[in-house]
């Protein structure tokens, strides 16, 4: 007799995240209040800043694109029981792949550069995640540790590459040559003018396709069945004859490839060159996105949109409410990550108790359990 029964799906997927978000906003509101500003003004400034007009929406969707990729990277690995914290490093190194392809091919049309760059981003990001995957599968080094270490290695490697290899002689900063205009991936504003000069681009479409592909991979393929078995119960997957080490290496590679798509977005269309720290910690936000989205593509999509809105709205906030500095905005964003990501289970026990008392669905399930109890 377990004391607490799991929540119904809708409560787990919708109600719980909303409660977490509310709590985050209340605490953030208190912080705003403490420094002498009006929290309601702040929240409406964030909302307007994120969705007020085409320009705002364009920026929100640009951030969302990155968060979908890193959110999916974390979610996919999580289904196999792996915690990929290395999204940052994988995206960063993938930038190398994109810039090599883009600079080598930038005399050609973007329609040629784009698919090759996409593959290069996937390969470079994938390889950067494969190494921790290999070390986990064959040597037992925990991916949480190795992926974090690989973030640092990536950052050192990229500084070296940018300063010593990619920096043209006539440029002072650590960055590569600009990609020729014709080879840059088009921004959505070319097709939809209200987005103005916002950086949201075709990679948003790639992100939406990625959501669908991950869904099919995890829930509709034999490999997905195997990776979920491993994620839930590694002993059972071994019992079932699945090669755990092989699954770990493949899943980590795919996860890194997804994270690498951030570079595809940033390098090929947003920055149009390789710059230092272009990932801007999207890899870490991806962890919160995956947690809040319950590792499901639909959840990841909504959570990525929420974080995209917070990033964009937060940026606008400092211009609307001068008392709220950039640092305060980061505090608010961090509170949201804290309550929706790190402490996402805060309300669960209380909610479960409430549901056990009132929910009719639970009664129906209890009836089913009673039937289970009576053996034939």
């Amino acid at each position, binding site marked *: *007799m*377990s*004391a607490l*029964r799991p929540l119904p799906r809708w409560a787990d997927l919708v109600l719980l995240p909303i409660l977490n978000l509310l709590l985050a906003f209340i605490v953030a509101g208190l912080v705003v209040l403490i420094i002498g500003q009006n929290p309601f003004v702040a929240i409406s400034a964030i909302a307007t800043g994120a969705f007020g007009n085409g320009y705002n929406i364009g920026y929100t969707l640009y951030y969302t694109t990155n968060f979908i990729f890193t959110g999916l990277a974390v979610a996919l690995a999580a289904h196999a029981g792996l915690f990929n914290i290395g999204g940052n490093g994988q995206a960063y190194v993938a930038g190398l792949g994109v810039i090599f392809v883009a600079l080598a091919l930038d005399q050609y049309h973007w329609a040629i550069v784009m698919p090759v760059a996409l593959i290069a981003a996937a390969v470079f990001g994938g390889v950067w995640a494969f190494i921790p995957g290999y070390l986990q599968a064959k040597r037992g080094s925990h991916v949480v540790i190795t992926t974090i270490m690989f973030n640092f290695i990536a950052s050192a490697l990229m500084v070296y590459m940018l300063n010593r290899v990619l920096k043209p002689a006539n440029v002072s900063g650590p960055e590569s040559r600009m990609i020729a205009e014709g080879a840059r991936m088009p921004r959505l504003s070319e097709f939809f003018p209200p987005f103005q000069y916002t950086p949201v681009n075709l990679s948003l479409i790639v992100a939406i396709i990625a959501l669908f592909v991950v869904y099919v991979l995890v829930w*509709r*393929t*034999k*490999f*997905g*069945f*195997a990776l*979920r*078995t491993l994620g*839930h*119960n590694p*002993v*059972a997957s*071994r*019992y*079932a*004859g*699945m*090669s*755990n*080490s*092989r699954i770990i290496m493949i899943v980590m590679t795919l996860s890194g490839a997804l994270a690498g798509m951030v570079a595809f977005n940033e390098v090929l269309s947003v920055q149009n060159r390789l710059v230092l720290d272009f990932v801007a910690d999207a890899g870490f936000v991806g962890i919160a996105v995956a947690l809040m989205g319950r590792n499901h593509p639909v959840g990841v999509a909504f959570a990525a949109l929420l974080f995209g809105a917070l990033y964009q709205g937060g940026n606008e906030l400092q211009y609307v409410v001068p008392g709220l500095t950039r640092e305060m905005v980061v505090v608010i964003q961090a509170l949201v990550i804290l309550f929706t990501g790190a402490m996402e289970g805060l309300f669960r026990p209380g909610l479960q108790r409430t549901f*056990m*008392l009132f929910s009719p669905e*639970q*009664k129906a*399930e*209890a*009836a*089913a*359990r*009673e*039937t*289970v*109890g*009576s*053996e*034939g």
Partner: protein
Amino acid sequence: MNEQPDSNAQRPDMAAASPPANGWAIELEKINKRFGPVHANKDIDLKVARGTVHGIVGENGAGKSTLMSILYGFYTADSGAIRVNGVEQQIADSRHALALGIGMVHQHFMLVDNFSVLENTILGAEDDARLAPSLAKARAELMRLEREYGLEVDPDAIIEDISVGQQQRVEILKALYRGADILILDEPTGVLTPKEADDLFRVLETLRDQGKTIILITHKLREIMAITDNVSVMRQGEMVKTLKTSETNPEELAELMVGRRVLLRVEKGESHPGKPLLEVRDLVVADDMGVERVKSVSFAVRAGEIVGIAGVSGNGQTELLEAVSGMRDQRAGTVAVNGRELYLRGDDGAARARAAGLAHVPEDRQRMGLVTAFEEWENSILGYQDSPEYGSGPFLDIEKAKAEADARIRTFDVRPPNNRLKTSLFSGGNQQKIVLAREMERDPDVLIVGQPTRGVDIGAIEFIHNQIIKMRDAGKAILLVSVELDEIRSLSDRVLVMFDGTIVGEADPATATEGELGLMMAGISERKAAQ
């Protein structure tokens, strides 16, 4: 909460209705406990006479554990009265229960492996922050208890160095040290050899003779008959009946537990063994720590016979099963199915073993044989997910898998018949049926079965045993590993006894006595002890 404390209306089936000479140690009256809408205990009445051994039997989910948890203060009853030694009590937590003299010995021991017996005994009951004086005082008290109740254990021995039977004594000593007068034992013999179980019963008898009250939760009717004075039967959250043990028999108890007549004996015909289908030669297997757990074992299982491996758990059976089924690398030796040697190295050896016609019902279905978070249909293809019948390409033919799951649910009478239900919501017996259906319906040549009826209700045991015998009669080779000696004896055509990683003997289950098998299971050291 509308019970009248002065109401003396006894249920007609309460055997010991009038107060016994020593009075009641425990009186439970109309205890109700709901978990949400699940009614785990319905109007439970239970009276336990002081100085007796009182058994409580019932299938899984009958509410035994809930009832004992209420008595021990883990849960609070929704309504009803608890009287301990005649005084009504509201037991708030286990600390309170202990203060009232109620101690519990759990099925899974709550001991710190690298502490000594003495340290474990006082753990959580230290007098003050300084350890040395507490230890000195505790040592004297512990020695007194050991002498008084015949519970000899070396106080300075480290827990991981002593046998399971001795560890259990430490658990009992812990309870006694804390002043327990009423001891609750939850499935105490599950981990013991027959001899250790006999020792335990002797200890329980001593405790009873010294005036302690013992509540014994078990599903083994033989133990109920051997040791208890009274027995209460629970079924689906209700107290069915309380009987004097001397006035009942196992058949009646089984019927009360299940609610219908149950065949306790397995009915099987003569075996007609054919050619060997499973041959194991000089197999050496190490555990995860690199310790050799199977030391050069050889045997064969022929078509149409059931070979049982008897042994106390932890003597290499688990590693043997895992190695033969391809889940664990062997250090040396060979495994052949149907004359063809299996290549079992690498972490997907189980897939090759299955492809060769070897099916495996693992010892621990929840840890190994099932993904409890999966829906039922997903578990019904586990291990066979790559088979072409569930889709030729990379995609899984979910409709096909679900249709097959439904067919198996019907053949094996899995309840409830719902392939979308999460597997963890099925009872132990039904989970086992899901595994058996998956492994048997593929018509394998060799079936390896570990603990087929562990945690399975009596009603389902009968069904599972019959299925295994049906497989045998269909000319399959069956290797059975079980810690239930009764099960090994009644199902097997040949019995191999395993001790410390080797097969120490073979016996004919029809002629070997339990004592002979028990001595073999205990190995040489135990035999010395018996002399």
